[in-house]
Structure formats: C-alpha cells, structure tokens
C-alpha cells in the first residue's frame, strides 16, 4: 500500500514528504499527527518509544524519555494509532527488541490490526531480518530498510531486494538531529540507491528545514524530517503550528522539485 501509493505519486511527478513524530509523549500527539497529514505529508513515521534509542540524538531521546515517563507502551501507542484516521500511510519506527520481545507474528499483527502499513527497525540490518520480514510480509506490513553512506554496493543490492515501501537513504554518518547543511554523502548515496532499484528513494537524518528538504528532492524521491518536527513539539508548538511547519516543508519540496 505504501509502495503502490508512493510509486504512483512519484510517477505523477510528486515529491514525497514523510515527517516523523515520537508516539505517546503529549496528550495531543495524535492531533499533531493528523495536522501533519492534513498539511501534505505522504506518510508519517511514528516512533514507538524504546528505552535505549541508539540511533537518536538528544531531541528524539528526550521525547522518547518523556513518552516512557508518561507510561507509553508499544500497545498504547499502536492502539492510539488505530483510532486515528490520518488518510495517509503510517509507519512504525522502533528498536528491534520491542518487536522481538512481543514475537514477530504478534508484533506484525498488532501493527496491521491498527492500520499501520509499514515498519522501520533501524537496528535490524537485513542479515538478521529474515524472520521479521517473513512475519511482516504475511501480515501485510511493509518493512523499509536503511541504506547508509558506508554500505558497499553488494550490500545495497541485498537491501534493495528486501526493502518494501521505499528505501531509506541515511544522509550522513551519525545520529538523528538537525544539521546546518545537508551532508554531501546524501546525494552520493541516493544516486547509488537509484542506480540499484526502482523503489522510491527517500533521504532522511539531518534534514532540518524546507530548503534542505527541497535540496535532497533534487536527487531523491522524497525527504524524511524527524528532529525538526519533534523539537517543535517539545517546545510546545500546537498541532496547527506543527501543521504549518509541515506545510512549509511541502511548499519547499513542491517548488524546488518542479
């Protein structure tokens, strides 16, 4: 469902925008999610808080900590998603242990049952992913795999063969967080992924504003924006204000990409 809609949109000339939100750390987080969908997001990544968010920088770590402190659990976050009619695909992003602990089948069915279309498990490289990918596939959950600047071409082929929905090109070496400029590694990696697969290629990690989102959309099919969204919500932005930021990102990639 993600892949189909993303391919259609891409082939129609639209650049894809995927904002990220940590689930469960504000009472109105699902309102924020809806506002982002209304503002032109093509899909939304929802972080299921994990105690040890290895790939995250300080901002998403803090949102994760607050969410856990407020009692967010995988079940509570996913249950809240079941009640949201966002109108765009939702993708769960979390650490593999929550999935492993629940059991692959149960976790995949929990996501599918709540209408979550996809999953991203950054600490589950494809070498370790056979069991999960099979369970996710059976449940109709599309697992987006990450490609990194350090990924050699031979691994890239394997990643692209297994990834569903899109291929997540990690723009830089490092954790999530805003950066002053887009890393030069982003264009190089996006180019290599594009040369390997026909799947949509989205660039994420370190994409901080509309200009940067537009910049990566010059060589990729879309942009993923996480910390810049989460920071605003941590600073108290209302759902409308976050929606306005996402609309700004949308306008940026629509003007830059045409």
């Amino acid at each position: 469902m993600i892949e189909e809609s993303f391919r259609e949109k891409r082939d129609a000339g639209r650049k894809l925008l995927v904002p990220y939100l940590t689930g469960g750390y504000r009472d109105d987080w699902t309102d924020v999610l809806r506002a982002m969908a209304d503002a032109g997001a093509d899909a939304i990544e929802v972080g299921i808080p994990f105690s040890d968010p290895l790939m995250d920088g300080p901002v998403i770590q803090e949102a994760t900590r607050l969410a856990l402190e407020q009692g967010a659990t995988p079940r509570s976050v996913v249950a809240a998603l079941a009640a949201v009619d966002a109108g765009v695909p939702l993708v769960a992003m979390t650490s593999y242990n929550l999935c492993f602990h629940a059991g692959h089948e149960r976790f995949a069915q929990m996501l599918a049952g709540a209408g979550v279309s996809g999953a991203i498990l950054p600490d589950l490289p494809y070498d370790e992913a056979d069991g999960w990918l099979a369970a996710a596939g059976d449940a109709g959950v599309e697992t987006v795999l990450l490609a990194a600047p350090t990924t050699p071409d031979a691994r890239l082929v394997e990643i692209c063969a297994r990834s569903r929905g899109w291929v997540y090109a990690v723009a830089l070496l490092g954790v999530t967080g805003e950066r002053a400029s887009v890393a030069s590694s982003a264009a190089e990696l996006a180019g290599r992924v594009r040369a390997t697969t026909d799947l949509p290629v989205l660039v994420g990690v370190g994409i901080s504003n509309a200009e940067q989102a537009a910049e990566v959309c010059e060589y990729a099919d879309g942009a993923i924006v996480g910390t810049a969204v989460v920071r605003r919500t941590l600073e108290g932005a209302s759902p409308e204000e976050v929606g306005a930021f996402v609309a700004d990102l949308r306008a940026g990639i629509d003007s830059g990409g045409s």
Partner: protein
Amino acid sequence: MREPSESGRFGEFGGRYVPETLVPATIELEVAFRDAWSDDAFRAEYDRILRDYAGRPTPVTACDRLSAELGVRVLLKREDLAHTGSHKINNVVGQALLARRMGKHRVIAETGAGQHGVATATACALFGLECVVYMGEVDVHRQALNVFRMNLLGASVVPVTSGSRTLKDAVNEAMRDWLASVESTYYCLGSVMGPHPYPWMVREFQRVVGEEAQRQAHAILGDDPDYVVACVGGGSNAAGTFAGFVDTRARLVGVEAAGGAAIGHGVPGVVHGSKSFLLQDEHGQVTEAHSISAGLDYPGVGPEHAFLAASGRATYEPANDEEVIAALQLLTRTEGIIPALESAHAIAYVVRAARTGAIPEGSSVLVTLSGRGDKDVAQVMDILSA
C-alpha cells in the same frame, strides 16, 4: 569454547544487530581480527606486551587461611596483579594492536567502574592513540579516582547523562559516537558483548587468563579444580577463564550481581548489538540494573554466557550487596588481598556455597580475582561507616 557461527552466533545468541551504518565496520573488524589472530607476528607482539608490559603470567595463589575458614581449597587467579589492576589490560592490548594494524588513530570506549576506561587509556598512551572514554555520570562520581587516572593518561572522559547514567548508557553513547566516526575511529569494547565479532574477539583476548590458570592450578593440585568461579557483568573475565577450563571436568560458575542478574532474572532480548539474556519489563523496555559495583551494573550479559547457561555447561548464581561486602572483608583479613567489588561477587558465592554445602567440603575451587580493590576503597569506607 568454539568459534561462533558464520553469523556470529553461539547457539541462538549473538548476531550483529546494529544499524546498517555500522555493519560494514563490524565485518571489516571481523576480517581484520581473523587475519591478525592467525598471524604469528601479531600473536608474538601481543604475547610480548602482555609479558613485558602487563606483567603476565599473573600468579595463582593458594589461599590457606581462607581455605581453612571455608573448608574448601581456594585458589585465586590474580588478575588484580596485572598492570592497571585488572584483567581488562589483556583485551585492550589486543584491540589497540588491532586498531593500529587497521590504521585507526582514534579509539573510543565505554566504561562502568572505570577499569576498562583506564586500561584503554593506558594502551592508547602506550601506542600514541587518541582516546575518548564514555562513562555514566553516576559512575563518574563513584569512581572519581579512575576518571582522574584516565585524564592523567591523556584520555578525555565524557560523562553520560542519559538514561540510568551508568554502563548501559555509556555503551549507547559510545555507539552513537561510532555511528558518526566509524570511518576513522576504532571502538574498543570492554566486554564479551556487542555485535559480532566483539563477544568472540574479546573472549579470545581474555583466553590467556583461563589458559594460564588451568596450567597453574594443575601444577598446584595435580589435577583440574572441581569448580571454576568468576564474576559476570558483561562477562569478559569469566569468558576468558572458562575458555581454559571448558574442556576439563571443572564445574563452571558465573556470579552475577543480584540486582543485575541478566541470566538469573532476564529473558532473551536484543540490545547493544547482540541477542542474549536481558533485564527488561513486560513490554521489552530494558530495565536498570542496581548493584554496589559499577562494573556489574549492566542489564545484559555476553551472548556466549547465555549459550553456556542454556546448554548447561556453566551455571550462573547471584550475589547480593551485603554478601559482597562481607566477602571483601573476609578475603582482606584472611589473605591480605583487597578485591574489587566486582571480583568480591565471585568470592561471595564461594563463601555461601561452601557454607551451605553447595560446594562440598574438601572441593577445590579456582576463583578468578578479576581486579584489585583500590578503586573501591572510598566507597567501601562509606558503606562500612554508614
């Protein structure tokens, strides 16, 4: 103990659960380690440094007064006498040699009690490498002397303020550094944990402890010991020790901190790169360990220990804080050896097991004394005067 499978597994445990960014680096490390470990010149240099610099072989001491007190024959493998005061030097000498061989000039490490941090800083000073050590803020305070030692050795110590601010969070932060610096930086992991090849490689670099102890104990006893006991946090001194005895008849016992008993109270999980037993809540969130000893304050355990426990070749027992303090005092007064709080867990188990008969009277017990207690003296003073 055998080499892990091609996918880095000991039975179902182990693996390489790291973000894609790091997978190529762990593969590169595995290739480099295999190459070095089968290179006679590398082995000769490693052996030479352990001998001429780190003071190996460390002795095995027969503890006559403690043995008389407990009714079992206790031998101590004296890693407390190795340079920097613990077994950690064996691993860092190996990894620093490997870092140099791989052309990496910056080394990062995590540390709990500070012993691995001090050892890494020492090896980096010896080889002229830049060294950054991540240490939980709680541990920075309770191990202030080791922080100063690291600074004196030229390392930068970065206090980690996230999560429980102990070893687990220091590992998170070291891995975050490595995500950004992987092309130029060598991650010197301090225990038999993390993604493949670390659990295997660190065990190989610690194997010297068990191989020496097996020969030395045999010379003293005329036989292998009945029991071999070592404390387990991540489990590097135990893994190295067990490697020397796994093919003997000795019963292998790992001793966990009661408040951080990943094997005793954990269930299989995945964190910090490998699948093993892990303390976690009903949802799979990693829970915090609580131990008097910073070095055992870790909710996970090395995957090979999970395998040894599951296969029954080794058993794992808890020791609580009170038993540990009592054991530290007993060893100190009967033998004139002040053990590290970590190592005192192993002694505490032997004391309890000898008194309950779990270790029958007259048995021989080889205990690895993984480190000396100097770093803990101030903390023990506070506890005993409270």
